[in-house]
């Protein structure tokens, strides 16, 4: 076997395997150094536990399709279960029954249920339509009021019945209002509601508005709502509404015809870059199918048509090698970032300056003993604003994967002040949570990068004990 870090999977029907967590990796692992021979390596498998029970409504009737989740009271064991968080999950059947199986331990067992029917129903026979809050075993709103289920190795713990509790406030809301500026045409007008900051298919819903422009969207969960009207003639600006405990009525959306953005790319370097100027919509998953053009001509001019109202991120695709985006002027004003806000249908102008004098930054990642970190699952982050640091960033100018030789390199760094952060999945802790990631990002020493710099910086990662001695 080549040296390296391996995930360790042990399978035997009716048994589970776990080991104390290293870093935040939820999988059992084994680290093999070059030439190492691990002898007498013992793997202790444990008989699995089963937790069974029913999910019931207030009348004691079974609930089908309830989601049941058992959360371990302590998450110090890497069990390698698929979700990675140590939670066991199942759904109830038509008898309201569920069956969870997994690693032995103490669990909080929670059931949640959401009626598939998003429309609220009126009852006049005195009964109440189900509006159930997530409920902990046996019938508690919060984890701390719930009862821990202790599941010893090999045990079948049955009778863990959860009676769902009625939610104090509605879980679903209605948004209604009117779309103005609707031309007289047969084309439908859609109103789209996106719930939450980030686009996901599951948090977007839509309706078709009436010929009078009126619309109703039902079954919207609480939270930030971004509402937009769309018609073949154009789009409305995005209206943001925060729904907490009441419906949003009288939302006004005004259709505006699409805009055109034209401008020039100035390249401070050799030749003229080939490619496109892209505008990526910040709402609705960055889909910009309607946009036309954007190709950079030999004189640097470009033109993008069919731009709806809204906020867009500007990118040059592809960026020339070793280049950085120096400045963006939108309608004559210099932007601080790379986001333009298209507010009106008249033509807008965009001037983009890119420079080929980007800095380069590279170095080696070392353990506290000074050894290079080889064959590690490590990422290096280049952070300009720790408040905005995000572990999920995929921009190669912001985060790179450590090479197998322990080296990292950023090939095009924009001048500015930065901090570096190195995370190794097996050695670092407290990085999955966004707040603690920001804290880690803020802890590094700040340094300045100037145009054309070629910097070398070696980094240390905090190293936990990396032995295989968990059950020797």
């Amino acid at each position, binding site marked *: 076997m080549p040296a390296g870090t391996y995930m360790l999977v042990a399978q035997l029907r009716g048994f589970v395997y776990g080991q104390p967590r290293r870093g935040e990796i939820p999988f059992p692992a084994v680290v093999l150094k070059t030439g190492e021979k691990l002898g007498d390596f013992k793997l202790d498998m444990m008989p699995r536990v089963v937790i069974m029970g029913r999910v019931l409504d207030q009348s004691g009737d079974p609930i089908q399709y309830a989601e049941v989740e058992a959360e371990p009271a302590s998450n110090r064991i890497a069990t390698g279960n698929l979700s990675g968080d140590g939670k066991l999950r199942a759904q109830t059947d038509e008898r309201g029954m569920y069956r969870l199986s997994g690693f032995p331990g103490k669990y909080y067992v929670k059931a949640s249920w959401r009626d598939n029917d998003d429309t609220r129903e009126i009852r006049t026979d005195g009964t109440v339509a189900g509006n159930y809050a997530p409920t902990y075993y046996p019938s508690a709103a919060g984890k701390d009021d719930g009862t821990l289920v202790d599941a010893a190795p090999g045990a079948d713990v049955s009778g863990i019945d959860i009676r769902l509790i009625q939610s104090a406030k509605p879980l679903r809301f209605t948004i209604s209002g009117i779309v103005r500026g609707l031309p007289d045409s047969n084309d439908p007008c859609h109103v789209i509601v996106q719930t939450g900051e980030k686009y996901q298919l599951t948090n977007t819903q839509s309706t078709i508005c009436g010929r009078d422009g009126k619309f109703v969207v039902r079954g919207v969960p609480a939270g930030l709502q971004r509402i937009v009207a*769309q018609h073949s003639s154009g789009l409305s600006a995005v209206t943001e509404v925060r729904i907490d405990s009441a419906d949003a009525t009288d939302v006004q959306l005004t259709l505006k015809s699409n805009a055109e953005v034209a401008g020039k790319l100035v390249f401070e370097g050799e030749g003229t870059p080939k490619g496109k100027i892209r505008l990526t919509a910040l709402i609705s998953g960055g889909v910009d199918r309607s946009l036309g053009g954007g190709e950079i001509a030999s004189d640097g001019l470009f033109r993008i048509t069919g731009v709806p109202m809204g906020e867009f991120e500007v990118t040059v695709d592809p960026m020339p090698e070793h280049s950085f985006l120096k400045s963006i002027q939108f309608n004559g004003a210099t932007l601080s970032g790379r986001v333009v806000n298209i507010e009106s249908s008249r033509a807008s102008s965009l001037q983009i300056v890119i420079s080929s004098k980007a800095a380069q930054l590279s170095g080696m990642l070392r353990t506290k003993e000074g050894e290079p970190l080889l064959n590690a699952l490590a990422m290096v982050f280049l952070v300009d604003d720790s408040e905005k640091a995000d572990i999920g960033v995929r921009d190669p100018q912001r985060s790179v994967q450590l090479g197998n030789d322990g080296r990292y390199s950023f090939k095009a760094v924009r001048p500015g002040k930065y901090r570096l952060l190195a995370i190794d999945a097996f050695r670092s802790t407290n990085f999955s949570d966004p707040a603690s990631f920001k804290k880690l990002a803020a802890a590094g020493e700040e340094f300045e990068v100037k145009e054309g710099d070629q910097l070398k910086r070696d980094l240390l990662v905090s190293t936990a004990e990396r032995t295989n001695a968990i059950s020797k």
Partner: protein
Amino acid sequence: MPFRSSVLIPFVLMSTVFFGQIAETVAPDKLVSVTGSVTNSVTREGVQRAHVLLRPTNNPAQQSYGAITGADGKFAVTQLPPGEYVISAEKPGFQAEGGPTNQLKLDAGQKKETVKLVLIPGGAITGRVVDADGQPVESAMVSVPDGGGAMTDDQGRFRIGGLRPGRFKLIATLRILPATGPETRTDGSEQPNYAATYYPGVLEEKAAGHVAVRAGAETSGIEVRLVKTPVVRVAGTVIGIPEGQSGRDWYVQFSTKNNRFAGAQVRPDGTFAAWRVSPGRYLVIARASRGAIQLRTASVQVDVGGANVEGLELKVVAPFELKGLIQYDDDASRPKAASVSAAAPNRGRDTIALQEIAAPQFGRVLRADVNADGTFVIQQVQPGRYVGMPNWGAYVRSMQLGSRRMEGQTLDLSNGANGETLSIAVNAGLAELSGVVRRGEDAAAGESVALARVPADGSMLRSMVTGVEGTFTFRRLPPGSYKLVVVDKDEAVGGWFRKDADDLEGGEEIRVMPGTG
């Protein structure tokens, strides 16, 4: 207007679209009420604590009304506005019985009484999944065609409940994640690999045994023995991924007619390899899994058996504009003068529809208005094969794209249109096929009859239920060969929409000559 396929259309299509309207206030004396009962189809007794729901027919987003049945199965929904509703009853473990009573037209002030709803108590299948040595298999997924399924426990046991009575073909799948090649083993042992296996232990759906389920009863002791097969990989290349997009953002998806799936991530260099693909016939398509533009390839059919499949090529074609011209064989094949009414402004337009076939999103339909001179334009066409369907009394006789002539209604746009104009010859000679179904000497009412094109050209099969005299009539048929079959009503098929002549067992082949419309 180039905006037609705009920013948010995909989400409009994929999320629930309903027609919003503000509810009007109704005077109290105009309000209506509905009372009735819910009965168990087996015991004929009332079903208590069933949920009865009335949904407005034409306006699903409008307020719905509900009630819960009492101990005797009786319910009362009161104070609802007049209008057309669909009434349904539901209770976990029960299946609804359809019927004409489910549509209610309620006039102002009406008190509708004794509405009878029937619930069928669901059945269940229980059993075990075992390996080639007869040992229980844990974490195998056992499923039935309508989408129900269950995972086996550590004793190999499973239970699928809440099933509509009928006959089912069961399939057990043991997924090994991640789906990679065979493990390297140096201790002399061999890692077994099991294919998705039909009950009782066969790979072919046609050879599968049926499991009969009765209402409210459990069919137990059903054992599926998984079939061991070699680890097989399907490998190939995605060609034409645009510059600036890494192959890493592409995904290759495999799907069978029965919605069994497999897949593989594309490597940065455009190559891919899907491991542990169970034997069967697959449609394979590559698509960008992220990124702003919806890009994909046409689908390619692949038969997977006991050996690796190598060198598969999938070509990316950007969504394109298709310009076309309808050529009418004669005056009869022209659309009749359209009658446009305010109530249905979209009705009466002449449109040509292209329905995508042999694709993962089967049923996707592109439509374009046909102008008076026969021209039409369809935007954002994805590569693939399509069936052309005029919405007036005519059928597609042949098509020609550039110099390529295609007989029949199937259009191959796997490589795009290359800017060429599609000409579509339409003919009014639609035919009619009618007959009678008998059991022995007796006319059989309520039987399902299915009709499919031979050879299968990707068009959807048509089905209908025989009337009281056992009669059936299929209207507006393009001429050609068809297979006509009386379908076993009790057999759960899990959606006819992807089935064709190859899936119909028995039956008779019929040649339909051009008719007179």
